[in-house]
């Protein structure tokens, strides 16, 4: 991607994530890692029970069949960073928009909280700050200084850990080199024990994500809606015990 700087505009990556459902064990490490990295507030039992939890990534668990032949499957769902994002055109103040790296930007300090994007999003992965977030001291010390702490009335969502992307870019630039594949790792990808999550640049045909995206197992969530997500899932395999 970044090889040809002939074009009048700098070449930009298309950040994408692979979710290998055959590896995912539903261990929730990504969920907590995301909370820790992105200053996501914890609500409480009542609020969570009323559907006001703030997780940016949730692991959907689907049941199949009836006892005793029952199966459960996990599907982690985070913001799909759609290329044709339904959430973008509806925001009246450009708080959410599409940036040159194929990310659905969410600019917290621009958000006025109409929640229109939340209605428009078919994956329902946007979280809204219903109240002022609480970090009883000294829990404030755990906050990541690279990420804004959102106040009440602001919509937030997975950013592919933009702060890590920017940090890596700055460092690479300071050392006068290109970003290497796999150099940028969102918190969830970094921690995922079975390596079910992979992150990288789709514009680079040799990147790991590009290669995995070409797998015969790949599919995308609600593809029929034509949102063209940047999150690509790999089907979970089914090996039945021979006999």
């Amino acid at each position, binding site marked *: 991607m970044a090889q040809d*700087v002939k*074009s*009048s*505009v*700098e070449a*930009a990556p298309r950040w994408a994530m692979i979710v290998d459902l055959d590896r995912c064990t539903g261990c929730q490490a990504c969920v907590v890692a995301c909370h820790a990295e992105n200053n996501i507030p914890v609500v409480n039992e009542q609020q969570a029970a009323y559907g006001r939890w703030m997780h940016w990534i949730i692991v959907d668990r689907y049941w199949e069949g009836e006892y005793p032949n029952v199966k459960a499957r996990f599907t982690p769902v985070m913001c799909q960073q759609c290329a044709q994002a339904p959430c973008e055109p509806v925001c009246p103040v450009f708080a959410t*928009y599409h*940036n*040159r790296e194929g*990310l659905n*930007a969410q*600019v*917290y*300090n*621009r958000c006025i909280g109409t929640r229109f994007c939340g209605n428009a999003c078919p994956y329902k992965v946007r979280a809204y700050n219903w109240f002022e977030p609480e970090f009883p001291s000294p829990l404030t010390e755990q906050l990541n200084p*690279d*990420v*804004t*702490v959102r106040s009440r009335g602001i919509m937030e969502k997975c*950013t592919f850990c*933009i*702060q890590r992307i*920017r940090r890596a870019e*700055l460092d690479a*630039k*300071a050392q006068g080199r290109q970003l290497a594949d796999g150099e940028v790792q969102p918190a969830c990808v970094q921690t995922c024990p079975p390596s079910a999550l992979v992150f990288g640049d789709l514009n680079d045909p040799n990147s790991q994500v590009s290669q995995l995206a070409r797998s015969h197992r790949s599919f995308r969530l609600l593809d029929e809606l034509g949102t063209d997500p940047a999150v690509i899932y790999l089907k979970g395999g089914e090996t039945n015990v021979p006999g």
Partner: protein
Amino acid sequence: MTGRRSFVIALVATALLVGTAYWRIHRASEVSAASDQPIPFSHRIHAQAGVQCLFCHSSALRSDVAGIPSVQKCMGCHQTIAADRESVKILADYWQRQEPIHWQPVNTMPDFVFFSHQPHLGAGLSCETCHGNVGQMDVARQQTNMDMGWCLDCHLKQPQEKTARLADCLLCHK
């Protein structure tokens, strides 16, 4: 008659309201009055003594923040230099107590803005470009109101192939 008076009163009231609102909004970002520091520190004296900005604010070249020198660094010189001055004595006391000095921030940014010194110095900017000639000041003040318009003003003047990246919200807001 009464109508006219009430009209005048209303007018004054609105004027006051608008005025205060304007002041509130702009007080934060306007060229701020000097905040009182724990130690009467003079940039001018140090600059005249030939101390470079980067000697004390050493991490500007490699990090987001320019950095406030540690008490240790201050004492490095002031063990001997001007040790008898009142202000330096205060410093020495801090060192005695092994207590950090709570300097008041001079150039503030809202904390949804993620500014990094390193790329700006890397792009060849000098400290004075944004901070003014601090070397002439006894008490450091914010020289320019560092609002988004001010940032964009420069970012959009950059080579045309770069502006797309430099004008992206996610460059500074995360």
